[in-house]
């Protein structure tokens, strides 16, 4: 059987007022691969990521996940898909400040109906895997930036998503912490078989990917549908 791409964006256009954010952007993501979206600020790489993840709706064009058209789904169908199949890591601020780190990681499992004790146990395992088992009982405000990002990675991976979307996941970290986050993040993602779509302007972060797709002026530069 020929392998099918997991996620396909075709001819995406999106305007913010007068500004053309996406201008005929197309990209394929294959199961289990790590793709870095690169390009200068304002090139449209984050917008493309948000469209791929079904967070933003393009003006025209199509995004398909496993052949299902995201742009034709209802909001609630898209939310369900995001919750069940996708994971997210942002630059910062994605953890719920009132919850402890382990509660943050357990949250996606709880929302999808896993029992309290099992969710807690799985979340603890994930924190340990990301080498932040010691901050389980702390609130996000009490941990360092690098620890917080590793907790966020654990939360993104805990429900075993098929795709993890990461937007500048090391953007707020110094290089040593950034390296550690990337190393643990990509190793764990590869272990679970999740594909990763990674927006970054840093070449050293992009070097953790299998391939790069360069976004310029709202379009993905040729070459890379890969496979």
């Amino acid at each position, binding site marked *: 059987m020929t392998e099918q791409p997991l996620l396909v964006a075709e001819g995406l256009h999106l305007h913010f007022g007068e500004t053309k954010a996406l201008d005929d952007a197309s990209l394929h993501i294959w199961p289990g691969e790590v793709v870095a979206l690169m390009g*200068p600020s304002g090139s449209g790489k984050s917008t493309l990521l948000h469209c791929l993840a079904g967070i933003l709706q393009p003006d025209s064009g199509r995004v398909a996940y496993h052949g299902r058209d995201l742009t034709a789904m209802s909001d609630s169908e898209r939310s369900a898909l995001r919750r069940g199949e996708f994971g997210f890591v942002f630059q910062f601020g994605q953890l719920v400040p009132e919850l402890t780190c382990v509660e943050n990681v357990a949250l996606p499992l709880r929302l999808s109906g896993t029992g309290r004790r099992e969710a807690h146990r799985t979340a603890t395992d994930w924190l340990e895997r990301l080498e932040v088992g010691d901050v389980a009982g702390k609130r996000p405000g009490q941990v360092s930036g690098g620890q917080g990002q590793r907790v966020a990675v654990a939360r993104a991976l805990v429900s075993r998503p098929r795709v993890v979307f990461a937007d500048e996941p090391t953007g707020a970290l110094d290089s040593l912490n950034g390296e550690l986050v990337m190393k643990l993040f990509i*190793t764990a993602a590869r272990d679970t078989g999740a594909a990763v779509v990674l927006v970054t302007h840093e*070449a*050293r972060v*992009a070097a953790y990917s299998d391939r*790069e797709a360069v976004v310029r002026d709202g379009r993905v530069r040729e*070459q890379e549908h890969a496979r």
Partner: protein
Amino acid sequence: MSVTFALLGLLENGPRHGYDLKRTYDDTFGRDRALHYGQVYSTMARLLKNGLVEVESEPGDGPERKRYAITHAGITDVAEWIGRPEKPEPYLQSTLYTKVVLALMTGRDADEVLDSQRAEHLRMMRELTRRKTDGDLADELICDHALFHLEADLRWLELTAARLDRLAARVRP
């Protein structure tokens, strides 16, 4: 890198046979480039002539029975070498800059020059990142050194890509 000073420096913690010296060098600094035995012996011969090492022979002679020891003059030279800052590369002769300018002057696609170079750099960076991820602390430090240099090239490349129109206006006949 100065193989001579590295070999001399390795003798500072005690005398070594040529083969032992080679093995220690390869383990510590060699990475992709192991030394030839010949290079070790010719370097030792030169250092011997200059009085920076001396030979302690063991019974049953033959070349492999020779143990090299560093002299006081050798130690002074190593100390001087370690303490002297390396001259920073000025990086003013850039082949890539020449290619970009010529592409613009001759109406070729300069964007393409930069794009294919970026792809090439990232390929190398990926390989180094893999080695680093699978390796020990020494691998990490050595690969990081290379990665930072490649990253610097890439930053220049992105900046140049953003200024191509201005550069084109200057160099086009």
